């Protein structure tokens, strides 16, 4: 089970020529003859010309994953509260609609969403010609210039973040959890004159920390690996997230396996850390999502 990872790590610290030497036993291939941590620095240096390289891709990935996670938690929790506690006409039909869409393949919605992002700058230019919607923006920080992409549309943070900020699955999971919270506390709070929003923020949310943590970890890790959507949204190297950056790196250094494996290690290490820290919630979250559904 761990053998592939071992192979990944040992390749990532080998001198460049060593991986192409023939060996008389696979064991010898698994143990690097000479450990070169330098490879990791090389990855960083070799990609720097690619729109900022690994450092920038890290930053993009962290930014996108964190904002998407927070956004999903907020929108899902609010919606889940409405679905589990508040009576309003059409509620159950809407909820069924949410459930129904969970089975729809990504490809179905991806095509119109791509068209939207592809065309939105044209449409906005017609609607509000006083803003230059098509121009990629830059910001100046500490004497350096950084690309930050368009405001909306292809090659924008907007495209990477906003369309994925809403989750039917998250809403469903949190609703199931909220349903399991006893109502006594809320009734007492209502008698004390608490409004619905206060009840939500002071009772429901604090009691749901485990569920929120689980959903948060799921969303974060899922986003860190997200590939299809960023792939069709991005062309500029400087806007890329790690998976895409790694892919362009692979395109340029296709046979430099030591560097490629070092890059892969750098990509998966944060996930391993997040997983090991959060694994207790993770496991219970998987069981919660499935069993109560």
């Amino acid at each position, binding site marked *: *089970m*761990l*053998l*592939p990872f071992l*192979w*990944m790590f040992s*390749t990532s610290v080998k001198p460049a020529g060593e991986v192409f030497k023939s060996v*008389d036993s*696979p064991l010898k*291939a698994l143990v690097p003859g000479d450990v070169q941590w330098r490879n990791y620095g090389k990855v960083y240096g070799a990609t720097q010309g690619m729109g900022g390289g690994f450092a920038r891709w890290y930053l993009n990935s962290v930014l996108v994953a964190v904002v998407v996670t927070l956004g999903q938690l*907020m*929108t899902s929790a*609010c*919606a889940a509260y*409405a*679905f589990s506690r*508040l*009576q*309003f006409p059409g*509620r159950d039909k809407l909820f069924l*609609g949410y459930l129904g*869409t969970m*089975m*729809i*393949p*990504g*490809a*179905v*919605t991806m*095509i*119109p*969403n*791509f*068209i*939207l992002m592809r065309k939105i700058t044209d449409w906005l230019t017609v609607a509000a010609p006083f803003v230059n919607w098509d121009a990629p923006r830059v910001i100046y920080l500490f004497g350096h210039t950084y690309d930050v992409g368009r405001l909306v549309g292809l090659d924008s943070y907007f495209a990477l973040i*906003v*369309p994925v900020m*809403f989750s*039917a699955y998250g*809403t469903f999971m949190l609703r199931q959890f909220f349903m399991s919270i006893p109502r006594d506390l809320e009734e007492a709070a209502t008698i004390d004159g608490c409004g*619905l*929003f206060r009840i939500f923020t002071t009772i429901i949310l604090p009691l749901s920390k485990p569920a929120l943590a689980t959903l948060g970890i799921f969303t974060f890790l899922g986003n860190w*690996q997200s*590939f299809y959507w960023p792939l069709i949204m991005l062309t500029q190297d400087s806007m890329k997230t790690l*998976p895409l950056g790694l*892919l362009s790196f*692979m395109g340029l250094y296709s046979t430099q*396996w030591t560097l490629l*494996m070092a*890059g*892969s290690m750098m*990509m998966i290490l944060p*996930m*391993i850390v997040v997983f*090991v820290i959060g*694994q207790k919630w993770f496991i219970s979250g*998987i*069981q919660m999502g*499935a*069993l109560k559904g």
Partner: protein
Amino acid sequence: MARTKRGRTALAGYLFLLPNLLGFLAFTLIPVVVSLGLSFFEWDLFSPPKFVGFHNFSTLVHDHDFWRYAFNTVFLMLTIPVNILGSLFLAMVMNQKLRGIVVFRTMYFLPTIVMGVGTYLLWRWIYNPDYGLINAIITHWLPRWLNDGISRFGVEWPPQWLSSVTWAKPALMFMTFWTVVGGYNMILFLAALQGVSPELYEAADIDGANRWQKFWAITWPLVSPTTFFVFTMSLIGGLQGGFDQAYVMTHGGPAGATTTISYYIYNHAFAWNHMGYAAAMAWVLFTAVFAATMLNWRFGGRVVHY
């Protein structure tokens, strides 16, 4: 009074729902409808869309590539039963109260967590015909008579893996097995096993049942709802799967051997700008997923014990 209170609750309900609902409408519901509409048009994003009625669907029926890639998709899904049985087996091993089990659980779950471009790259390297780990193991650790014997049958050996029409699919399937066997399914099986009361096994022990009999008479029926659930989910996932690995590892090759429907849709939509045809294909895929799920509920429901 009661009326206004109910009215206020309803208003609050809509307000709480609003942000999510807007996103849901904008990026899920409307796109679903739009893509259905799009499937009746021909559109390359530049010239104006042209209404073609059912033309895209009839083209699809006669598109040999589509059927070939549909076959590939189903072929890659043949691992599903193996993956599920593997997960069940692992869960049964984990269910014994051994020390350090959490460490093993974490270890087996790791591939599921990190699956993505990083691990696809890793497996490309593992499957490298000349310097990869797998062929090193095959040439050095398998006995000579076995290696010679296999190649005498006319099988390509040691395999060229990802660049071989014969071996590319099995290579991806083995990678999938490694990725998912200790993942979500195993955790769900573990939970199911922990719900089985130990008295059942004790009673069976008294009756002198052996391990195999206990498995078929107690474990298998009692975890069947979980088996059913994970099978359904794997089916849904499998039909839409194969894009990321094909894109990163094989570009759908060699000679289309690892192109799945989702990769074909990607090519039509985003490489060749055939928006209408891709939308039609996406809807056919959706129908297939829906049908598979319904069939599964209809017939699978009979063998499940709740």
